[in-house]
């Protein structure tokens, strides 16, 4: 069924359509949540909170054909706000670095898991900004709104993230050769 029909059903608070929307996009949102979170449990919590916000705020959605992007923005915003209450522990960073050492492949043979490890090795908030800009397609202005920073600051963080990835790529090339 087309998104537009599902949205109209959801706007009438018809449980059938709401359930259809949830079934259709939950897995994509879950994958996004996992990229921004460390564990499955937190990702589920974020997803749950996001869906409630989506169904309550669907009236504000402009039917521009970017429903998933709109929901992802809500999801990421939810995740970022929840992170404000937490601090990244040293243990987490060590774990990521250890994971990174296990990537012993050339860049042409990188798999999904390897890419995730590379991304996770970038420090926050450059990591989140990189994912939002490169993978989820947000503009710097949108990122600035979501994260409460200036667009120029977002560009700086993105640049730092790219530098980090280039370093990793070079190191992998050296190790494999």
């Amino acid at each position: 069924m087309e998104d537009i029909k599902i949205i109209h059903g959801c706007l009438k608070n018809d449980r059938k359509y709401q359930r259809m929307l949830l079934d259709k996009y939950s897995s994509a949102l879950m994958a996004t949540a996992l990229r921004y979170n460390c564990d499955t449990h937190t990702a589920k919590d974020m997803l749950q909170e996001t869906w409630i916000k989506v169904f309550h705020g669907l009236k504000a959605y402009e039917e521009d054909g970017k429903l998933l992007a709109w929901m992802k923005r809500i999801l990421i915003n939810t995740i970022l706000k929840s992170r404000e209450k937490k601090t990244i522990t040293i243990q987490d960073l060590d774990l990521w670095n250890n994971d990174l050492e296990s990537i012993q492949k050339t860049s042409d043979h990188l798999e999904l898991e390897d890419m995730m490890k590379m991304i996770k090795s970038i420090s926050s908030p450059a990591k989140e900004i990189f994912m939002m800009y490169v993978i989820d397609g947000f503009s710097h202005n949108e990122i600035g709104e979501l994260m409460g920073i200036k667009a120029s600051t977002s560009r700086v963080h993105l640049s730092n993230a790219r530098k980090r990835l280039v370093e990793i790529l070079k190191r992998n090339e050296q190790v494999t050769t």
Partner: protein
Amino acid sequence: MNINDLEKRMRDALGGEKAAVNTDDLWGNIQSDLPKEQESKRAIKWTSLLPFLLLIGVASGYFLYQNGLKGNISNESEIATNINPQLPSSHNNVAHSIDRKTNEKELVSISDKNLPADYNNLNKLEIDNHSQDKNILLNLNHTFKNSSNTETANKRDNQTFSSFSYRAVHNNGQNVNLTEKAESTERSRQNSSSRSYSATPLSLNPNQKVDNLFYNSPNNSNNSSKTISRNQNKVINTNFANTNESVNHSTLDLRPLAIQDIEELLANGTLSSSPSMDEKQPFWIERDRLFFIEIGGSMIAGHGQLALENPDFSSNFNNRNTAEKSLLSYGIDAKIGYQLNDQFSIHSGLVVTRLFKSSSASITTIEDITIQDGLIQEIIGSNSTQEIRGQVSGVRQTSSTVKRINNYNFIHIPFGVSYTRSLGALDFRISTEARIGISATYEGYVHPTRTEEYDISTDTEAWFDKASLHFLSMGAGIEYPLSNIFSITFDANYQYQIGSINTNTYGITENLAGIGIRTGIHIKI
């Protein structure tokens, strides 16, 4: 690979990535937080129709009642003079024997081959010769119920039913008491008409109390000691449904026998003038019992789907056990109806159905605990230090038993039509009704017993959820008449929910359907 290529690969690989997630759990967790705007609109829509439906129902009932009175009720004199039920000729023998009761004083036994066997068996005369006083007590209590068919193409449609009961006590002592209660009912299915007659009490002497008749017996001087007591309470049923016997309307006198007695007494001079008669119809006969009440209980299979599909109902302890689908719901109903004619009736009332489930669970938690006192933690950059000045470690076991109860309560107002057809001793009926109403859901916990009250938190708040529901119910059953007023009913029925309102409220994708059995008492009023 340069950074642009890497980013493109990352975008392709991660942008469309999907991760497994249990949407059932997710949906179950968010349902209670979703807006319920449409639900309330539906409720308002249905509830706003209720007054109009009730108004239509009351108006229809009044209209039918008025028409029914005109069509079925006659004035008293007409009722009294139009008693002319059809009886087979064999009844004449019975009536004849009663008319001859004055000749039975000297009889020791009666054996009339022409009488029905039951009647002869009951004619036990007890003779008491101990008393020197010549008292002859003749106590007759006869009830005749006869049904016969006139010879027409469709016998059943022309079935005529008549009943007649008579009680007379003749005491041949100082006085003879004659107390009568006579009822005669004629009912024709074809004409949809019904006439009833009741004359009680009957008084021949205006100076006496209305329910007694006193007069000097002509046998007062008889000193032979005989008491003849006949007490027959058994109903004599004769069913001539399959006979081809013709009925002679003109020769049969089925007026209360007391009236015939009076005529006889007038003829032989015992009475000098005709006594006054008090003929009246009891109030419940005036309307010929066109209204009825029905009270019943039912058991429905199929609503367990609610328990199966609604995570609020069952997921806490047993995670949607499919066996819950077989949960039965139980209902009670009270209905009032109006008999349009001998076949069709309409009814309305209240139906309450409940799907109930109780479950309990024991939870035991064993955990390592560390109680720290005086913890000093310092985090500077990537370095952290901590100092613990006091610490207690141990194991804590927490046990609790929680009982959880859930129920769905369906409260419906039915509007139904029934068709009834007589099949021998039973009435077979087909009934269908539309129901509108609401469901109220209750979920609650019985407070748990536990050893650590602060370790396990349970939701002890009961909550209600309402949803409008409308059903169609169709059933067929039998009705067994115990008397002219009371009947026992047994029905099997099928219920189907119109519209998938549960989808909105409980996330249930199927319309509810159930098969039920019902039994009840049908009371004509």
